[in-house]
């Protein structure tokens, strides 16, 4: 299958390993990955910070960049949630019904990585090998916005050598929330502290998730606290052999 990669601005700039792993994984499974270079950012930060009109050109750019592809994948539940749910709303609020309809179409063809693997490609065993103990944090937007359910866990359970350790209070937000982490930094840090306690209580040396943003937050907190626990994007584990 020919799959277009929406890398997300965060993975492109700060976490390219997650994006490279996505490419390697899909190619290993026999698919062709293309990277349309006109892509930039989904605009979620603008929408969620109250800059909806400013996000409109980003929506337009996403739609025009990916309109020609049947299947689009992004290694982020949060960006996919924004593309699917916010893009049509941003276009509609600006009175652009045509763009809203196109955004809806393209959004319906845009998948988060675990959705693509399980729902579209019909694979749960991706042939990965990762002999480590791992705990999984279900990010809020993958859980409650796009409802990936247990797909990431099903993928992880098929990874050879991987011991999956359940994260206590897993469905509690890590406190990132985009600009929330800046505007309400102390509340965000209090939420992060509880998430870090839960992660460390598992004894797993690796915490994984489907969003680089939440991992940046959890990982930044763990590193500051001097914790030996590392964060790793789900794609990097699934790409490992």
């Amino acid at each position, binding site marked *: 299958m020919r799959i277009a990669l929406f890398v997300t601005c965060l993975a*492109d700039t700060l976490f390219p390993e997650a994006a490279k792993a996505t490419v390697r994984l899909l190619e290993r499974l026999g698919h062709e990955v293309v990277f349309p270079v006109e892509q*930039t950012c989904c605009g979620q930060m603008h929408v969620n910070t*109250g800059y909806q009109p400013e996000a409109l050109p980003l929506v337009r750019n996403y739609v025009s960049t990916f309109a020609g592809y049947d299947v689009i994948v992004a290694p982020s539940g949060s960006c996919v949630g924004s593309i699917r749910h916010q893009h049509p709303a941003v276009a509609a609020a600006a009175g652009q019904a045509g763009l809203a309809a196109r955004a809806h179409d393209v959004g319906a063809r845009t998948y988060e990585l675990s959705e693509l693997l399980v729902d579209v490609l019909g694979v749960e065993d991706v042939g990965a090998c990762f002999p480590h103990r791992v705990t999984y944090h279900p990010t809020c937007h993958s859980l409650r916005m796009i409802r990936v359910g247990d797909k990431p866990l099903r993928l992880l359970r098929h990874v050879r050598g991987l011991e999956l350790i359940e994260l206590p209070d897993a469905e509690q937000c890590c*406190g990132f*929330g985009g600009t929330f982490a800046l*505007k*309400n930094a*102390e509340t965000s840090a209090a939420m992060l502290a509880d998430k870090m306690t839960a992660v460390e209580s598992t004894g797993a040396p690796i915490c994984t998730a489907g969003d680089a943003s939440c991992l940046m937050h959890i990982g930044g907190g763990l590193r500051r606290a001097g914790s030996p626990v590392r964060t790793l994007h789900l794609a990097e584990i699934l790409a490992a052999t």
Partner: protein
Amino acid sequence: MTTFLGMPATAPRGVGHLRGDEPFPRAAHTALADGQLRRNLRHATTTIRAKSGRVIAELPDWQELRSAGSAIKADVLSRLPELLERLEARVTERGGVVHWAADANEANAIVTELVRRTGAERVIKVKSMATQEIALNEALEAAGIQPVETDLAELIVQLGQDRPSHILVPAIHRNRSEIRDIFLRAMPGVDPGLTDDPPALAAAARRYLRETFLSTRVAISGANFGIAETGTLAVVESEGNGRMCLTLPETLITVMGIEKVVPAWTDLEVFLQLLPRASTGERMNPYTTMWTGVTPGDGPQNFHLVLLDNGRSAVLADRVGRQALHCIRCSACLNVCPVYERTGGHAYGSVYPGPIGAVLSPQLTGVEDNASLPFASSLCGACFDACPVKIDIPSILVHLRNQAPHPPAEKAVMRAAAYAMSRPRLYARAQRAAKLARIAGRRGRALPPPLSGWTAARDLPEVPRQTFRDWWAAR
């Protein structure tokens, strides 16, 4: 010909409890430093979450009930004037008197005058969010009338000269030794040997309240539902103190937000399943009191219904935000909110705290008067899932953020980012420039505000040597 009368007014300034003294982040700072408060809140919200989750799981049609509750409320909002006029007609037919209050000032004046006409110097009160919202107690006190809260937790808050911090459990921030101290200090006729044993505390309140019930001629309540079809008002509660107020006195005055009207008696079938399970985690609330106008020889012989707007019409005028008027005040969203759990209710500055408060308060007052509240959420979405009437709180929060005033520096950064991000080549160049001009020191531990908020508790990621885009191009 129709005349445009302008947009509906928001709740007036200078009266009521919808506006805080300081922005949310500053108020949260104080609450976050209080370890005891955080432990109390965590314990209370975790307990009630588990209890509610258990009884909700018993119902195979919970999602259908949510949809039904949401649909009934959407229908109500689409024909609110018609339903309110029908309610007024039915209540009047049955011997009640209906008053229309545009805002808190009018409602307080109406209620105060009604009480004054009875000659009573004291009133008993059923727990009510609407009267807290308009600060009715303060208005009555200013008129020389003593209001006595009869819900145990509201009584604790009132005697402690405190503010409620939760919609359902207003004294959630108090522990039992604090409650004993409040009772010893402020409860008339209290036993000076009172201990902090919960049954002893409840017995002390009971003794005081029974005397008050039997010697007070006027009661004031809110209403959970007002049924347009029959003119029936309904109050649901757990303690039975509400029923005392609703049945014993000669005069009953009910202050009801205009969004509380429901079309028909049969609609209660939906809400009386949704509310207790979402709220207290009970299958059914212990007391459901309903009354229709005046029944000769039974219950209050004078009944007044005050219909309160106080900004609700302004909320109704907003297509996205109006869903907030679906709220049945169950507080499920507070109990699942990770922000509320850490900051408590006072940080929100309004009688409506938590996620629903973060969308309702700014809409009732106008966003400029509660500009920090729409940002008091990580948009995790737990509130939307928990809401028994399916209010899409995250979407309303995002919608209101658009209306909030933005700091000029932030605006400049966001505009510049949007400009670059809608131009792919400029975006790629900016990415490389950012990499070169890395302003962070080692591990990014000292950045200027607002980025210092991040670096206070978290390291920044190392900037990689190569962006994905460059890696792809060189592949």
